[in-house]
Each structure stands twice: as C-alpha cells, then as structure tokens.
C-alpha cells in the first residue's frame, strides 16, 4: 500500500476544467452539422428532377411548399403507391389546396400576402395529370407565383 502512496497527506489535485469548453464546443458542432433544418416531416418520397436554367429561391419565409410523390413504405398500406399530395404534415387531395393557400396567406403579414411563392417539390416520375390539377387549383386561388423545385445538373 505504502508503495503507491509516497505522500499520504496530500489532497487530490482538482481536475482542470480548462478543456471543458472544448468538449462542449465539439458537441455543439456535432449537432450543428448533424441537424438538418426541416419544417415538415416528409411522408412521400421525392427526388426532384434536374435542370440547368435554375434560379435560387430567395426569401424562404415567403415560400409555401407542396410536396407530391409516392407515399413512403410505411404509408403504402393506407395510401397506396400512386403519387399523393402532401401539405404541411398530412396527405391531402387536390381539393385541399385552395384552403391550404388561404391558410398560408393568413399566417403571413398583410403586406406580404401577395408575394407568396408556391414551390412545387415533385418527384420526377410523377405524371403531369396531378400537377396540371394542382396548377389549376393554384390559379383558382390566384396564387400565381410558382417554382418548380429542381436540382442543379451535375456538370
């Protein structure tokens, strides 16, 4: 015993906490990198098509998203495998779009309401029929600014 304790009376030295901020920073960075900001949980699989002549969508707070795609596997039992529309967190039908646009308008400030853009995030294998229907609904709701979400083609 005494072999290891050469000086028994000495107190344990305090552990230096100088590296604690580092650890905290590292954790912070880890979560910063690993987190993806997403407002809604996607219930449909979407792989947007590629295009070259694209523009950046600015002012994200003035964008409302409409998702169209095949329901994810866990939903195929209830919703089938045909492309479906998703608004906010739920599956919807074409008839719901006008109400959705109205509620999106309602949630914005009055002076910004006519600046709303609708972004269509549509899976590339979707048929145009459903999109034509959506466009007609958007026109009826007089929400005429439209953005077809696409990826940049890899050069």
């Amino acid at each position, binding site marked *: 015993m005494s072999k290891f304790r050469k000086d028994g009376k000495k107190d344990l030295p305090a552990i230096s906490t100088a590296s604690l901020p580092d650890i905290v920073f590292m954790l912070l960075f880890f979560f910063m990198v690993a987190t993806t900001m997403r407002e809604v949980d996607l219930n449909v699989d979407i792989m947007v*098509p590629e295009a070259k002549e694209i*523009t950046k*969508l600015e002012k994200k707070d003035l964008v409302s998203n409409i998702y169209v795609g095949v329901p994810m596997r866990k939903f195929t039992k209830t919703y089938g495998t045909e492309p479906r529309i998703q608004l906010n967190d739920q599956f919807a039908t074409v008839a719901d779009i006008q109400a959705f646009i109205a509620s999106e308008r309602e949630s914005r400030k009055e002076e910004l309401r006519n600046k709303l853009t609708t972004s269509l995030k549509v*899976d590339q294998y979707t048929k145009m029929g459903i999109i034509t229907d959506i466009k007609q609904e958007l026109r009826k709701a*007089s929400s005429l600014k439209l953005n077809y979400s*696409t990826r940049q083609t890899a050069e």
Partner: protein
Amino acid sequence: MARKTPEINSSSMADIAFLLLIFFLVTTTMDVDTGIYKKLPPIPEDEQLNDDVKVKKRNVFSILVNRNNELLVNGEVLSISALREKTKEFFLNPQNLENLPEKALKNVPYFGDVMVSKGLISLQNDRGTRYETYIRVQDELAAASRELKDEKSVQKWGKKYAELDDDQKAAVRKYIPVQISEAEPRNTGGK
C-alpha cells in the same frame, strides 16, 4: 496545504475552437432551394374563353408532349436535345423564311429600331407525361431564351445578359420576347 497543479495554459483553446468553427462554416452546405420560376396565367374570365387570341400558324411554335414522353414540334417528332437549336432558329429566323414567324419593326431602348420576332411558344402536355420530361422541356426552352439574350447583350455590351443592369435587361427582354403559353388543360382520352 495542497500543492497547486500547474494551470494548463488555455489561451490557445479559443484558437482551436475558432478553427473548428471556421472549418464547419466553410464545409457546411446550406440546402438552398433552387428551381425553375414560372408565373401562372390568371384564370380567364368566362366571356374570354371562346375569344382566344388568334395567332397566325407560322408564329406559333407548338410543342406537344405525349404520354410516352415524346415530343411533336410543329408537326414533326423531335428529340429533347434538338429542341434548343430549333427554338433559337424559330425566334431568329435569319433568312426570313415563310414558315418561320414574322417580325415587326419595334423601337427598343438602347437598340433603336429593330425587327422583333412575333413568335410564341405553345406547350401542351398529356396527363400521362412524366414530370421529369416536362421540366426538361421547360429547361431547354429557358436555355434557348437565355442563349438568345446572351447573344444580343454580348453584341451590344460585351457582357452576358445576367450581368446587365435592370434597364438593359428590360431592353433585351423587349428585343427577344420569349413567351411560353401553356394550353388550358383539356381532358381528352382520359387519364
């Protein structure tokens, strides 16, 4: 009395933290929303429906896309990759051919009196057309329009269209009016 452990010099901690911060700032790619911007036409009033503007056949560049994602451009089958050249040729009509659109004398700021094409693109797709094809057609048309505009602005200012200021852009847009009209959806032949 406890012996003091020598304090670890933590002055470089800040440097390390900043280094990490900068590293992640640089390498993180914010997911930017990109896409093709379009403006939908408003719903026509009822009385206008039957009173469609009559446009001469030679002035219309009609693109039909069928359910097998094939293109019919002014009556002939065309591949998507050939669409861009075809569109440019349609708008330029360098030899003033009979079957390509007519031009009208117009006064455009910066350019003076120039011949402006009266051409119009009409795009119609089937309900069974794939979205990807539709986007590719839109993309090719946008590319054709941009190339035409670039050509004019390089001629005039030696700069690409995107680098011009707003007035110049408006002038070029007036010189090269590329209008895409999408046909009112018709339900023919079911889904």
